[in-house]
């Protein structure tokens, strides 16, 4: 299954990455090459093998629902690329 430049464009949109034409070209070659090497997995019979999502499954560790954090001051906004008082500034979302 050869990867095309259209595939790369489609995936870049899903990943919210704007790619330069040269990047698109390079990624098409790289990803195709990588996926070709990874195709060896298809040769393994895994019909009855359960997937591993996490190695250690000790169930959901729940803690008491107690408020421990004090109300946030200015800290969450200190790294904001753009702010307006107590708010993050963003481009207009609703037309």
């Amino acid at each position: 299954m050869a990867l095309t430049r259209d595939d790369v464009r489609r995936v870049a949109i899903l990943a919210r990455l704007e790619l330069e034409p040269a990047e698109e070209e390079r990624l098409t070659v790289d990803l195709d090459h990588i996926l070709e090497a990874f195709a060896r997995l298809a040769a393994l019979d895994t019909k009855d093998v359960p997937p591993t999502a996490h190695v250690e499954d000790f169930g959901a560790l729940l803690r008491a629902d107690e408020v421990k954090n004090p109300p946030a001051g200015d800290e969450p906004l200190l790294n904001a690329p753009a702010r307006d008082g107590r708010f993050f500034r963003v481009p207009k979302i609703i037309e």
Partner: protein
Amino acid sequence: MSALTDLSVREAAARVRRRDVSSVELTRAALARIAAVEPALGAFLTVAGAEALAAAGAIDRRVAAGEDPGPLAGVPVGIKDIICTNGIRTTAASRILQKFVPPYDATVTARLKDAGAVVVGKLNCDEFAMGSSTENSALGTTRNPWDPDRVPGGSSGGSAAAVAARECHASLGTDTGGSVRLPAAFCGVVGLKPTYGRVSRYGVIAYASSLDQVGPIARDVADTALVLQAIAGNDPRDSTSSPRPVPSYAAALDRGVRGLRLGLPREYFVEGMQPEVEAAVRGAVQQLERLGATVQPVSLPHTEYAIATYYLIATAEASSNLARYDGIRYGLRVSEPSLRAMYQRSRAAGFGTEVKRRIMLGTYALSAGYYDAYYLKAQQVRTLIRRDFEQALGTCDALVAPVAPTTAFRFGEKTADPLTMYLFDIFTISVNLAGLPGLSVPCGFDQTGLPIGLQLIGRSFDEETLLRVGAAYEAATDWHAKRPPA
């Protein structure tokens, strides 16, 4: 050079507690060493001199007041720049986080401080820990202390280089596919990747969440055990951190290897390996036999599928984890009138080539129509790889293997084709997929004087046996005591 920077963590902390030396003196010595070697080495992205001296002063005042500041009392340490430090810039070696200053400490940072350690700065790494040479850092080049033309390994290259070069007494790295063990091997120091779940990841910038684990780097096994002791254990803020009790790692160190059964995985001794690496590892195995261990061959038959499995799972998880960098709340923003354009341009400008490649590969593997063939398939093969280890470790107490096929390579040697770099992780990556602990200890040098690492792989949550074998080997050899040229 000041002899203070040569002290082990244990000795430095003991002297601080006895008031033979102050933490401020140790910290000044570390900062002087950093100032002397950094222009050529480049291990640090941020040196936090003022903060470190203030912390050291506070430790000294506690000692003077008769308090015990903890097992790492006053000892200068460094932290990989992917681990959050309150008030100290944390970049993940990425342009997208170049100005990010965390408003909180990661749990491991807090635990080091609680144990008395003094954080002298933040260490370079591959961007978002994605790489095996630290060449993918967007913010600086780290050189190998043994040879400036060679890479320090990665992704925790700065963490290993700084410890080897005596800029700090120990450091923290993270290991998703070998990122603590490989740089430790390349720089001639000790590095431990703990069992998945042993150490909290709260405040550690996520790469691949089913694989990431924080681990210590130090100059010998006992120091490594001491730092592990400080950071290990359950954290209510990380639901993947295990509730299992933490044993005393120091108590494991002097038990010797007599009676232990060590397995030699035949798939880890392959053609294409540097002959000196194979000879050094086989020599170490013989040494362990002389010390009383028994050695038997074992097989990990799915090893050849590990690279593909890892790079599908890790990139899929990365594509999801890195979706948070959107230019809204923190990180780089390229201002655009539309939200979509702002996301796309901010991410395009903020991420480096390898990070983009992995996001793309992971997004592809998770996308409609490909999920079963790639991501689900990789998760199934991951089960087979785990079973290989369960079987091998059913008859052995630990496995012995090389860390990497060669010693440190030259800059640019493996950057032309990304797959070449991926394939280099062959001996470390399966351990992450299986969630097991792995220890890298120095076991020799090649003809050009570059260090070689021995890898010990253990059962789940059995760091004790690895530290025990590593300490016994170290007691019988002096590889770990060799130091890079000043």
